[in-house]
């Protein structure tokens, strides 16, 4: 366990010193600040726009962080041969995978926290500067705690994407891992369509195949609750728990698969 923690701490340290990460976070925070100006252009919709843009920025930039750092976790170590030094230490291969994953999840958690704080800061400023009469028109308060539910599910979704990136990174190059992870991310958002595919096509075989693919690929749509949160639709605890449970199971399966492949791999 100590080894996993040490590797995770190392990944975190390496990540926070990466210029790419700073640029992404800075850009996301700037976008949130800019959303305040954009909100001014649309009378009465300002808070909604800021929330929408803020959550979307958190998701998109979180995705970039998850993918661009996730794909390098293992494949860059192999490519640069630093894996030789690492695996010659008293480190089991599964500990390396778990440590790498935990380190990136920690990085994501810190970054999402920073982005969430930036979002709340913009919303708080808006709430502070507007009159009570104007605030009456808002569907939800500016600093609505429900935003945290959306942010939490974005974080869980990014944990899943990180596991996907790590999985691909155990057996393919960084570029291929990035392409596959982004591909799976896009497909994952339209996965629900596959479920109803058998009602659309005539061929039973194609319908069954679509069903298999539906269960095999990650379903990422349920993690996107931005619209509900912005429009004051409640999200139940049961929904949050079920979605998180699904992510947990999927992440577990991906990590097991990554460990299985990585444990048998030769590092030529």
């Amino acid at each position, binding site marked *: 366990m100590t*080894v996993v923690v040490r590797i995770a701490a190392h990944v975190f*340290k*390496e990540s926070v010193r990466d210029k790419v990460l700073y640029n992404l976070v800075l850009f996301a925070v700037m976008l949130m600040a800019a959303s305040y100006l954009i909100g001014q252009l649309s009378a009465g919709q300002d808070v909604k726009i800021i929330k929408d843009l803020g959550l979307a920025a958190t998701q998109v930039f979180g995705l970039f962080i998850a993918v661009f750092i996730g794909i390098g976790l293992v494949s860059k170590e192999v490519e640069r041969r630093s894996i*030789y*030094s690492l695996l010659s230490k*008293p*480190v089991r291969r599964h500990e390396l995978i778990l440590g790498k994953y935990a380190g990136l999840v920690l990085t994501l958690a810190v970054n999402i926290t920073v982005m969430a704080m930036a979002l709340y800061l913009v919303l708080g400023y808006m709430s502070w500067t507007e009159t009570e009469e104007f605030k009456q028109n808002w569907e939800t308060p500016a600093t609505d705690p429900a935003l945290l539910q959306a942010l939490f599910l974005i974080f869980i979704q990014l944990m899943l994407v990180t596991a996907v990136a790590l999985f691909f990174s155990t057996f393919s190059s960084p570029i291929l891992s990035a392409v596959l992870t982004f591909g799976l991310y896009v497909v994952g958002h339209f996965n629900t369509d596959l479920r109803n595919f058998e009602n659309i096509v005539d061929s039973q075989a194609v319908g069954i195949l679509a069903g298999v693919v539906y269960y095999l690929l990650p379903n990422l749509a349920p993690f996107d609750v931005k619209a509900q949160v912005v429009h004051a639709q409640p999200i139940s605890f049961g929904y949050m728990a079920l979605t998180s449970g699904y992510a947990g199971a999927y992440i577990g399966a991906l990590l097991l698969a990554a460990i299985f492949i990585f444990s048998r791999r030769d590092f030529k």
Partner: protein
Amino acid sequence: MAGYAISLQELTKDYSVGFWRPRPVRALNKVSLDVNTGEVLAYLGPNGAGKTTTLKLLMQLIYPTSGGAEILGRPVGDIDTKRRVGYLPELPYFYDNLTAEELLWYFGGLFGLSGPDAKRRAATLLDRVGLEAERRRRLRNYSKGMLQRVGLAEALINDPEVVFLDEPMSGLDPVGRRQIRELIQSLRDDGRTIVFSSHILSDAEALCTRVAIMAQGTLVAVGHLSDLEFKTLGWELVVTGSDTQALTSLGLDAVKQGQGGRFVVDVPVHRHPDELLPLLASEGFSIVALTPIHESLEDYFVRHVTRHASTAAGSHELNETPQTATSSPKR
């Protein structure tokens, strides 16, 4: 097998080559070798001989096709054994955003060293490899030679009993090479078991107690430097006598050395001293010294590698008959 620091038993590794029709190519062919505790073994061979493959197998970076190996009496990959082993990979590369001391702290932590212990050990090692002044510089700004030194320090962070060094002198300037050579000598004097791969034979001659020579994945020769059958190339004969005329009449080329009728004669290998010495005595020469001239380790190395290459006839496929030179060290 018991009692050896390192033991290889018919260690074999095949790689698949080709995408559409993969075929196995043998990188290491039934290598059996034992290394005693406290021994320094130079693992020699040209590029592609299987040196790095062997070390990677011992570090379990790759898995053997057949055969096995033990380090300190335990199968390779054993976690407790890894705590007692150090490894420098060929052309090491580390993390760009860490400094040298942070890297050593990290690896020290993986060995279970506490923070203060890891810091103390890192400072000592960076000083030993000549990087004390550069310890807080990020590794991305290090030259190839500096990374090599960091790699050496990293390989010793756990104060290992067994050290594997893959081309330790690679990328180093003459000063760096001397420093690292002295470092290896001090490790040897501490009684550690060291296996280092190299194709720089002067390093092997200076540091090792035994050499193992690899060619095309096969162990072709192994033994103590004193036991290897170096070819005799001739003799250096020092005599005193009247003049060079008599030497010339015996078919010898002589060079006069200093004063007092002292000559140095290069005796060719076909003129055996048993036949020559009585003739010189009869001509009135006194024998001062007679020293055989042997081939160098480099000549020996080239001779074995070339001979193996010609017998293997360039074939390196699986059906090749192995020529395994199995050897255990003198105990």
